[in-house]
Protein backbone atom coordinates (compact mmCIF):
# COMPACT_ATOMS: atom_id res chain seq x y z
CA UNK A 1 0.00 0.00 0.00
CA UNK A 2 1.12 3.54 -0.71
CA UNK A 3 0.26 6.93 0.66
CA UNK A 4 1.25 10.36 -0.58
CA UNK A 5 3.73 12.40 1.47
CA UNK A 6 2.01 15.53 2.77
CA UNK A 7 5.20 17.52 2.37
CA UNK A 8 6.64 16.55 -1.01
CA UNK A 9 4.04 14.33 -2.64
CA UNK A 10 6.29 11.29 -2.99
CA UNK A 11 4.81 7.83 -2.43
CA UNK A 12 5.45 6.30 1.00
CA UNK A 13 5.03 2.54 1.28
CA UNK A 14 2.92 1.26 4.17
CA UNK A 15 3.40 -2.43 4.89
CA UNK A 16 0.49 -4.78 5.44
CA UNK A 17 1.26 -5.31 9.16
CA UNK A 18 1.86 -1.68 10.11
CA UNK A 19 -0.37 -0.31 12.86
CA UNK A 20 -1.98 2.92 13.96
CA UNK A 21 0.60 4.79 16.03
CA UNK A 22 3.54 3.70 13.93
CA UNK A 23 5.84 6.25 12.38
CA UNK A 24 6.58 6.14 8.68
CA UNK A 25 9.27 8.17 6.94
CA UNK A 26 9.12 9.64 3.46
CA UNK A 27 11.95 8.13 1.38
CA UNK A 28 12.30 11.34 -0.62
CA UNK A 29 12.17 14.21 1.86
CA UNK A 30 12.65 12.36 5.16
CA UNK A 31 9.51 13.77 6.80
CA UNK A 32 8.03 11.59 9.55
CA UNK A 33 4.34 10.80 9.71
CA UNK A 34 2.27 8.94 12.25
CA UNK A 35 -0.37 6.54 10.97
CA UNK A 36 -3.66 7.72 12.49
CA UNK A 37 -6.08 5.41 10.70
CA UNK A 38 -5.76 2.09 8.93
CA UNK A 39 -8.89 0.29 7.76
CA UNK A 40 -8.33 -2.09 4.89
CA UNK A 41 -6.93 0.03 2.09
CA UNK A 42 -7.80 3.27 3.84
CA UNK A 43 -4.85 4.97 5.49
CA UNK A 44 -4.58 8.37 7.13
CA UNK A 45 -1.42 10.04 8.37
CA UNK A 46 -0.48 13.19 10.23
CA UNK A 47 2.91 14.84 10.73
CA UNK A 48 4.67 13.05 13.60
CA UNK A 49 5.53 14.90 16.77
CA UNK A 50 9.14 16.05 16.61
CA UNK A 51 11.68 14.46 18.94
CA UNK A 52 11.45 16.07 22.36
CA UNK A 53 14.30 16.81 24.71
CA UNK A 54 12.78 14.44 27.24
CA UNK A 55 12.40 11.53 24.84
CA UNK A 56 14.12 8.27 25.56
CA UNK A 57 13.76 4.93 27.15
Amino acid sequence: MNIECKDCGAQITVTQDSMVGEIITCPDCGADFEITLKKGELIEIKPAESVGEDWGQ
Partner: protein
Amino acid sequence: MVQVCVIYDKIRFEERILHNKITEKGFTSNLVDGKSLVFNTNSEKVDFELGDIIFQREISHYRGLYVTSCLESLGFKVINPFSVSEICGNKLLTSLALVKHHVPTPNTSFAFSSSSALQLMDKLGYPLVVKPLVGSWGRGVYLIKDRSAAEILIDSREEIGSPLSRIYYIQEKIDRPPRDIRCIVIAENIVASIYRNAAENEWLTNVAIGGTTEQVQMNPELEEITLRAAKAVGGGILGIDLMEDTKRGYLVHEINNTVEFRGASMVSTQDIPAAMIDYLVHECRK
Protein backbone atom coordinates in the same frame (compact mmCIF):
# COMPACT_ATOMS: atom_id res chain seq x y z
CA MET B 1 -10.10 -12.24 30.40
CA VAL B 2 -7.26 -9.93 31.38
CA GLN B 3 -6.98 -6.80 29.31
CA VAL B 4 -3.50 -5.30 29.15
CA CYS B 5 -3.28 -1.66 28.15
CA VAL B 6 -0.07 -0.47 26.54
CA ILE B 7 0.25 3.31 26.48
CA TYR B 8 2.53 4.67 23.77
CA ASP B 9 3.67 7.89 22.16
CA LYS B 10 4.63 6.03 19.05
CA ILE B 11 4.78 2.37 18.19
CA ARG B 12 8.32 1.12 18.13
CA PHE B 13 9.48 -2.44 17.50
CA GLU B 14 8.91 -3.08 21.21
CA GLU B 15 5.26 -1.97 21.39
CA ARG B 16 4.37 -3.95 18.31
CA ILE B 17 5.93 -7.11 19.74
CA LEU B 18 4.26 -6.53 23.11
CA HIS B 19 0.89 -6.20 21.40
CA ASN B 20 1.44 -9.46 19.51
CA LYS B 21 2.60 -11.29 22.64
CA ILE B 22 -0.40 -10.20 24.68
CA THR B 23 -2.73 -11.56 22.02
CA GLU B 24 -0.65 -14.71 21.58
CA LYS B 25 -0.97 -15.45 25.29
CA GLY B 26 -4.74 -15.21 25.05
CA PHE B 27 -5.15 -11.84 26.74
CA THR B 28 -6.73 -8.74 25.28
CA SER B 29 -4.37 -6.01 24.14
CA ASN B 30 -5.41 -2.39 24.16
CA LEU B 31 -2.89 -0.06 22.55
CA VAL B 32 -3.60 3.49 23.66
CA ASP B 33 -2.02 6.68 22.35
CA GLY B 34 -0.96 8.65 25.44
CA LYS B 35 -1.11 11.82 23.36
CA SER B 36 -4.86 11.42 23.02
CA LEU B 37 -5.71 10.99 26.71
CA VAL B 38 -7.42 13.77 28.65
CA PHE B 39 -8.35 13.83 32.32
CA ASN B 40 -10.46 15.95 34.61
CA THR B 41 -10.66 16.38 38.37
CA ASN B 42 -14.07 14.72 38.21
CA SER B 43 -12.85 11.82 36.07
CA GLU B 44 -13.59 8.35 37.33
CA LYS B 45 -11.99 5.06 36.56
CA VAL B 46 -15.11 3.78 34.77
CA ASP B 47 -14.84 6.65 32.27
CA PHE B 48 -11.73 5.00 30.88
CA GLU B 49 -12.04 1.62 29.26
CA LEU B 50 -8.34 0.98 29.34
CA GLY B 51 -7.77 -2.42 30.86
CA ASP B 52 -6.91 -4.29 34.04
CA ILE B 53 -3.30 -3.24 34.08
CA ILE B 54 -1.46 -0.43 32.36
CA PHE B 55 1.96 -0.82 30.79
CA GLN B 56 3.37 2.68 30.50
CA ARG B 57 5.60 2.81 27.40
CA GLU B 58 5.62 6.50 26.51
CA ILE B 59 8.84 7.90 25.11
CA SER B 60 8.35 11.37 26.50
CA HIS B 61 9.46 11.31 30.13
CA TYR B 62 7.20 14.11 31.32
CA ARG B 63 4.15 13.03 29.39
CA GLY B 64 4.52 9.46 30.62
CA LEU B 65 5.09 10.62 34.16
CA TYR B 66 2.01 12.84 34.35
CA VAL B 67 -0.25 10.46 32.47
CA THR B 68 0.79 7.85 35.02
CA SER B 69 -0.01 10.14 37.93
CA CYS B 70 -3.50 10.78 36.52
CA LEU B 71 -4.08 7.07 35.97
CA GLU B 72 -2.86 6.15 39.43
CA SER B 73 -5.09 8.73 41.05
CA LEU B 74 -8.05 7.11 39.26
CA GLY B 75 -7.07 3.78 40.77
CA PHE B 76 -5.30 2.13 37.84
CA LYS B 77 -2.28 0.00 38.46
CA VAL B 78 0.54 1.25 36.26
CA ILE B 79 3.86 -0.42 35.53
CA ASN B 80 6.17 1.22 36.24
CA PRO B 81 4.52 3.35 38.90
CA PHE B 82 4.98 7.12 39.13
CA SER B 83 7.45 6.82 42.00
CA VAL B 84 9.77 4.61 39.93
CA SER B 85 9.42 6.61 36.71
CA GLU B 86 10.18 9.84 38.48
CA ILE B 87 13.53 8.54 39.71
CA CYS B 88 14.58 6.64 36.57
CA GLY B 89 13.72 9.46 34.20
CA ASN B 90 16.04 11.79 36.07
CA LYS B 91 19.75 11.02 36.33
CA LEU B 92 20.27 13.11 39.45
CA LEU B 93 17.48 11.34 41.35
CA THR B 94 18.79 8.01 40.10
CA SER B 95 22.32 8.71 41.34
CA LEU B 96 20.98 9.68 44.75
CA ALA B 97 18.84 6.54 44.99
CA LEU B 98 21.80 4.35 44.02
CA VAL B 99 24.08 5.93 46.60
CA LYS B 100 21.42 5.64 49.27
CA HIS B 101 21.20 1.91 48.64
CA HIS B 102 24.97 1.45 48.45
CA VAL B 103 24.96 0.49 44.77
CA PRO B 104 28.37 1.20 43.19
CA THR B 105 27.99 4.12 40.78
CA PRO B 106 30.38 6.63 39.17
CA ASN B 107 31.39 9.58 41.30
CA THR B 108 29.04 12.36 40.26
CA SER B 109 28.73 16.02 41.18
CA PHE B 110 25.81 18.38 40.79
CA ALA B 111 25.85 22.14 40.26
CA PHE B 112 22.90 24.47 39.99
CA SER B 113 24.24 27.42 38.03
CA SER B 114 26.61 27.90 35.12
CA SER B 115 29.25 29.69 37.16
CA SER B 116 29.33 27.13 39.93
CA ALA B 117 29.42 24.35 37.30
CA LEU B 118 32.53 25.81 35.69
CA GLN B 119 34.26 26.27 39.04
CA LEU B 120 33.36 22.75 40.02
CA MET B 121 34.69 21.25 36.77
CA ASP B 122 37.98 23.15 37.15
CA LYS B 123 38.29 21.80 40.66
CA LEU B 124 37.47 18.22 39.70
CA GLY B 125 39.85 18.31 36.76
CA TYR B 126 39.32 17.08 33.21
CA PRO B 127 38.27 14.85 31.44
CA LEU B 128 34.69 14.80 32.72
CA VAL B 129 31.39 13.53 31.42
CA VAL B 130 28.44 15.92 31.50
CA LYS B 131 24.89 14.70 30.93
CA PRO B 132 21.45 16.24 30.79
CA LEU B 133 19.30 15.37 33.80
CA VAL B 134 16.50 14.11 31.57
CA GLY B 135 16.94 12.47 28.17
CA SER B 136 18.30 9.36 26.60
CA TRP B 137 19.90 7.62 23.64
CA GLY B 138 23.19 9.35 24.38
CA ARG B 139 21.86 12.76 23.34
CA GLY B 140 23.55 15.65 25.10
CA VAL B 141 26.07 13.36 26.82
CA TYR B 142 29.47 14.98 26.32
CA LEU B 143 33.02 14.07 27.10
CA ILE B 144 34.55 17.33 28.31
CA LYS B 145 38.27 17.15 27.76
CA ASP B 146 39.35 20.58 28.96
CA ARG B 147 38.23 23.96 30.19
CA SER B 148 37.48 25.36 26.75
CA ALA B 149 35.13 22.44 26.04
CA ALA B 150 33.47 23.13 29.39
CA GLU B 151 32.95 26.77 28.43
CA ILE B 152 31.40 25.81 25.10
CA LEU B 153 29.06 23.39 26.85
CA ILE B 154 28.00 25.99 29.39
CA ASP B 155 27.35 28.56 26.67
CA SER B 156 25.14 26.14 24.79
CA ARG B 157 23.28 25.24 27.96
CA GLU B 158 22.71 28.96 28.62
CA GLU B 159 21.32 29.32 25.13
CA ILE B 160 18.81 26.51 25.66
CA GLY B 161 17.65 28.44 28.69
CA SER B 162 15.30 25.80 30.06
CA PRO B 163 15.22 25.35 33.84
CA LEU B 164 16.79 21.88 33.60
CA SER B 165 19.61 23.07 31.34
CA ARG B 166 21.00 25.11 34.24
CA ILE B 167 21.36 22.06 36.43
CA TYR B 168 24.63 20.27 35.81
CA TYR B 169 25.26 16.57 36.21
CA ILE B 170 29.02 16.10 36.13
CA GLN B 171 30.60 12.67 36.27
CA GLU B 172 34.09 11.26 36.41
CA LYS B 173 35.10 9.61 33.14
CA ILE B 174 35.18 5.88 33.73
CA ASP B 175 38.13 3.93 32.43
CA ARG B 176 36.32 1.00 30.81
CA PRO B 177 36.41 -1.30 27.79
CA PRO B 178 34.54 0.11 24.76
CA ARG B 179 31.27 -1.41 25.87
CA ASP B 180 28.72 -1.33 28.66
CA ILE B 181 26.23 -3.82 30.05
CA ARG B 182 22.46 -3.68 29.85
CA CYS B 183 20.51 -5.98 32.15
CA ILE B 184 16.77 -6.20 31.80
CA VAL B 185 15.18 -6.84 35.16
CA ILE B 186 11.60 -7.90 35.77
CA ALA B 187 10.77 -7.92 39.48
CA GLU B 188 13.53 -10.11 40.94
CA ASN B 189 14.61 -11.75 37.70
CA ILE B 190 17.26 -10.77 35.22
CA VAL B 191 15.74 -11.79 31.90
CA ALA B 192 18.52 -10.52 29.65
CA SER B 193 22.04 -9.24 29.99
CA ILE B 194 23.95 -7.96 27.04
CA TYR B 195 27.12 -6.11 26.18
CA ARG B 196 26.62 -3.07 24.06
CA ASN B 197 29.76 -2.49 22.06
CA ALA B 198 30.50 1.03 20.96
CA ALA B 199 30.33 1.68 17.23
CA GLU B 200 33.67 2.52 15.66
CA ASN B 201 34.96 6.04 16.37
CA GLU B 202 32.25 6.52 18.96
CA TRP B 203 32.75 6.58 22.71
CA LEU B 204 29.07 6.17 23.51
CA THR B 205 27.70 2.64 23.51
CA ASN B 206 24.00 3.36 22.91
CA VAL B 207 22.37 0.98 20.42
CA ALA B 208 20.46 4.02 19.16
CA ILE B 209 23.74 5.31 17.71
CA GLY B 210 24.98 2.10 16.16
CA GLY B 211 26.30 0.07 19.11
CA THR B 212 26.22 -3.70 18.58
CA THR B 213 25.10 -6.31 21.12
CA GLU B 214 26.43 -9.57 22.50
CA GLN B 215 25.26 -11.79 25.35
CA VAL B 216 26.91 -11.47 28.79
CA GLN B 217 27.71 -14.48 30.91
CA MET B 218 26.07 -13.70 34.27
CA ASN B 219 28.08 -13.96 37.47
CA PRO B 220 27.01 -13.62 41.11
CA GLU B 221 28.54 -10.16 41.53
CA LEU B 222 26.88 -8.70 38.44
CA GLU B 223 23.61 -10.29 39.44
CA GLU B 224 23.75 -8.94 42.97
CA ILE B 225 24.57 -5.37 41.91
CA THR B 226 21.93 -5.37 39.18
CA LEU B 227 19.14 -6.58 41.46
CA ARG B 228 20.17 -4.16 44.19
CA ALA B 229 20.06 -1.31 41.68
CA ALA B 230 16.56 -2.32 40.58
CA LYS B 231 15.43 -2.39 44.18
CA ALA B 232 16.99 1.01 44.86
CA VAL B 233 14.60 2.72 42.44
CA GLY B 234 11.55 0.70 43.46
CA GLY B 235 11.65 -2.31 41.12
CA GLY B 236 9.35 -3.28 38.25
CA ILE B 237 10.39 -3.63 34.61
CA LEU B 238 13.72 -1.92 34.24
CA GLY B 239 16.86 -1.67 32.14
CA ILE B 240 19.91 -1.44 34.36
CA ASP B 241 23.03 -0.08 32.63
CA LEU B 242 26.47 -0.80 34.03
CA MET B 243 30.03 0.00 33.07
CA GLU B 244 33.05 -2.13 33.90
CA ASP B 245 35.58 0.11 35.61
CA THR B 246 39.01 -1.39 35.06
CA LYS B 247 39.84 -0.96 38.77
CA ARG B 248 36.55 -0.90 40.68
CA GLY B 249 34.51 -3.36 38.66
CA TYR B 250 30.80 -2.88 37.95
CA LEU B 251 29.31 0.58 38.29
CA VAL B 252 25.65 1.30 37.62
CA HIS B 253 25.26 4.52 35.66
CA GLU B 254 21.67 4.53 34.49
CA ILE B 255 18.31 2.85 34.98
CA ASN B 256 15.82 2.89 32.14
CA ASN B 257 12.15 3.04 32.89
CA THR B 258 10.58 2.18 29.51
CA VAL B 259 13.35 -0.16 28.51
CA GLU B 260 14.00 -0.87 24.86
CA PHE B 261 14.77 -4.52 24.17
CA ARG B 262 15.20 -4.85 20.43
CA GLY B 263 18.97 -5.27 20.69
CA ALA B 264 18.68 -7.59 23.68
CA SER B 265 16.04 -9.76 21.96
CA MET B 266 18.44 -10.57 19.15
CA VAL B 267 21.03 -12.16 21.44
CA SER B 268 19.03 -13.26 24.47
CA THR B 269 17.76 -16.82 24.80
CA GLN B 270 14.78 -15.68 26.86
CA ASP B 271 11.53 -14.33 25.50
CA ILE B 272 11.76 -10.83 26.97
CA PRO B 273 8.34 -9.47 25.95
CA ALA B 274 6.65 -12.69 27.12
CA ALA B 275 8.29 -12.33 30.53
CA MET B 276 7.08 -8.73 30.70
CA ILE B 277 3.49 -9.75 29.94
CA ASP B 278 3.62 -12.56 32.53
CA TYR B 279 4.73 -10.04 35.13
CA LEU B 280 1.99 -7.55 34.21
CA VAL B 281 -0.70 -10.22 34.44
CA HIS B 282 0.71 -11.47 37.72
CA GLU B 283 0.69 -7.92 39.10
CA CYS B 284 -2.90 -7.28 38.13
CA ARG B 285 -4.09 -10.51 39.77
CA LYS B 286 -2.37 -9.58 43.02
